[in-house]
């Protein structure tokens, strides 16, 4: 067997824990009584609220208008009455205004498939504007507005479209299930994206621990004779990051501070491809998503289709609650996710998982001084020196940290994971970036 592809530098291999929910087909999470829909789903400007308390809304209504270039519209998945607009804390730890909607039971968006021909007649520009209208963001985590990514800047050319089916975070199976259950729709979505960006080649990257996905995708590609390659990748974290995935598949490196398009690549998650498919074929806005609920303290790990704005507690209840009191509830994957304290925090467009972790999964060891073992340096996929950066930041030398490429850090967590002294390196990086932003303003 040929050697599996992977990226060149750094990375770690944490326990995969995928089997907890791997075989669970996607089921629908029942509707909540109240939706809390944040207007910010990503860095950049939050959407401008279009509704005020007392307003009646219908399922699929646009309730937030994108404000600024890096911003996406927000829609409500259910009809009902807007109770209030208030500030809520998002899983990432910062606050955003949100619409609290008392939902009409049973109200749900519906649309009809306009068919392949309707899509075939659209030109790329129109397709992009429909993607923008649907409020689609990258569903892999950072939730970057998709239409911004698909508008190729002047002077640049998209040679490759990479569809990201890596899902390298432990526990998560949302993308895996999508590739198994919605194979054809994901592939059609990928072809639409190819048309939008004018890419010459489309490659789908999937880690080798998802044999069913690999098989389903390969089969569908050959039976539909799609001009698309499916590649199997070695299991290694953080391969699902754009830069590492490009390196693994194309053997090209995105320059420091640059974007994938600088080297002719656009990366899109499989969930995003599905959202694009649904937006173009049915005019469906992005207002629900598949996520994995799992962890040793979760009673019934499963993969669920959840409406954006559903409180986390509601999803947990649907999955049978906790089997034992969790030590932490983490939103996203265990490597990059955020631990939350308030279970009424809503599911967002970028929420890929809800993990209930017990004491044994959560790091209990206490912090000791750095022993200069260099493990973090080896593990950092960006080639940074995390311990040096941490010391600089701790001493307030933010500028020197910047010179040493602090801003290249993507907070993947490899350094914190590997650190034997249990130094909170990633928090240090976030702290340093915060202080740099503070200095600028």
């Amino acid at each position, binding site marked *: 067997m040929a050697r599996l592809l992977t990226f060149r530098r750094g990375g770690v291999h944490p326990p995969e824990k995928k089997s907890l929910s791997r075989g669970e087909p996607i089921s629908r999470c029942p509707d909540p009584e109240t939706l809390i829909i944040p207007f910010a789903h990503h860095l950049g400007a939050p959407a401008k609220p279009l509704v005020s308390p007392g307003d009646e809304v219908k399922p699929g209504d646009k309730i937030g208008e994108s404000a600024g270039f890096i911003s996406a519209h927000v829609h409500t998945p259910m009809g009902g009455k807007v109770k209030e607009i208030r500030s809520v804390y998002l899983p990432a730890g910062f606050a955003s205004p949100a619409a609290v909607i008392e939902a009409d039971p049973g109200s749900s968006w519906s649309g009809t498939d306009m068919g392949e021909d309707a899509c075939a007649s659209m030109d790329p520009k129109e397709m992009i504007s429909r993607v923008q209208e649907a409020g689609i963001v990258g569903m892999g985590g950072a939730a970057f507005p998709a239409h911004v990514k698909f508008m190729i800047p002047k002077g640049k050319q998209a040679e490759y479209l990479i569809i990201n089916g890596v899902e390298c975070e432990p526990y998560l199976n949302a993308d895996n299930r999508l590739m198994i259950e919605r194979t054809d729709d994901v592939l059609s979505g990928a072809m639409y994206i190819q048309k939008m960006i004018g890419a010459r080649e489309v490659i789908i990257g999937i880690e080798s621990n998802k044999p069913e996905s690999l098989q389903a995708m390969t089969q569908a590609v050959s039976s539909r004779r799609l001009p698309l390659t499916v590649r199997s990748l070695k299991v290694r974290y953080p391969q699902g990051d754009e830069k590492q995935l490009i390196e693994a598949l194309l053997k090209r490196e995105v320059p420091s501070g640059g974007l994938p398009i600088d080297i002719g690549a656009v990366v899109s998650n499989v969930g995003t491809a599905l959202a694009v498919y649904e937006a173009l074929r049915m005019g469906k806005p992005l207002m629900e998503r598949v996520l994995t609920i799992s962890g040793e303290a979760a009673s019934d790990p499963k993969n669920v289709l959840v409406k954006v704005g559903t409180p986390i507690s509601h999803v947990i209840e649907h999955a049978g609650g906790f089997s034992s009191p969790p030590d932490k509830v983490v939103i996203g994957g265990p490597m990059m996710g955020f631990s939350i304290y308030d279970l009424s925090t809503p599911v967002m467009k970028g929420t890929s998982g809800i993990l209930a972790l017990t004491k044994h999964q959560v790091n209990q060891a206490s912090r000791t001084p750095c022993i200069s073992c260099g493990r973090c340096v080896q593990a950092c996929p960006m080639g940074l020196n995390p311990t040096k950066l941490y010391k600089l930041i701790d001493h*307030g030398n933010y500028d020197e940290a910047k010179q040493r490429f602090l801003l290249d850090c993507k907070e993947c967590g490899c350094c914190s994971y590997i650190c034997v002294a249990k130094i909170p390196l990633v*928090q240090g990086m976030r*702290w340093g970036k915060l202080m740099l932003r503070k200095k600028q303003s």
Partner: protein
Amino acid sequence: MLMNVFYAFLSIALLGALLGIGLAVASLKLSVKKDKRISSVEESLPGINCGACGYAGCAAYAEAIVDNAEELTLCSPGGKDTAEALARIMGQEIDFSAIKQVALVHCWGNEETRSSDFRYEGIEDCNAAFIYFSGADTCKYGCLALGSCIRICPVSAITKREDGRIHVDRNICIACEKCVEVCPTKVMQMVPHDSDWYVACNSPDKGAMVRKYCSVGCIGCRICEKKFEDGGFKVDNNLASAQYDRQYSQREGAAEACPPKSIRMIE
């Protein structure tokens, strides 16, 4: 035999003298002109090379002062005396006497008075803690007491008290406002040096809410403003503040009447 020893001595002595002269000439010819003030500045610094100023050591900071007109108040171990000494060398004024403002933490909350939402186990620094839900306390406007200000204060005017509160010594404070800039909750604010009373709360939340999370927070009841005409308090946005434009006679009365005792004498 004796002669041999003598020659050996002589040749080594001559060689030594020659090389010595060579070195002397070289040091004269090749010397780089260094601003004399650099060495006197360096001598005035503590010489412990701690890096608190943001430079690699005292020498580097000294160079930056002379060559790049860097600020004179960056050395925190050296404190006020050092800053004064530097000002003398550089012929600059840091007018300590004319400083009218001092920093003051507008919060009296601590573990005993307020509730928290979760257990914070991260880096001991206010800004680092602020990244996650603006800190663990339910009140999002108070002092996190993790000392970002203590670390940045160039004259060590700020300390953490036994009861966990942060205290600024107003006789040491040089009003550089660094702590005000670094404070994530903006609870550190400048007040006139001679001010007496202040409202030790920074929360604009409604009274009912404040009551739930902190026993010493201002509830915006307006008693101080309404009942004490010459108290000099104003309530805006559910939060009282003291006016410092002149002397007021009813400060103490208002302080006694304030239900949560948010009005305090500056210590």
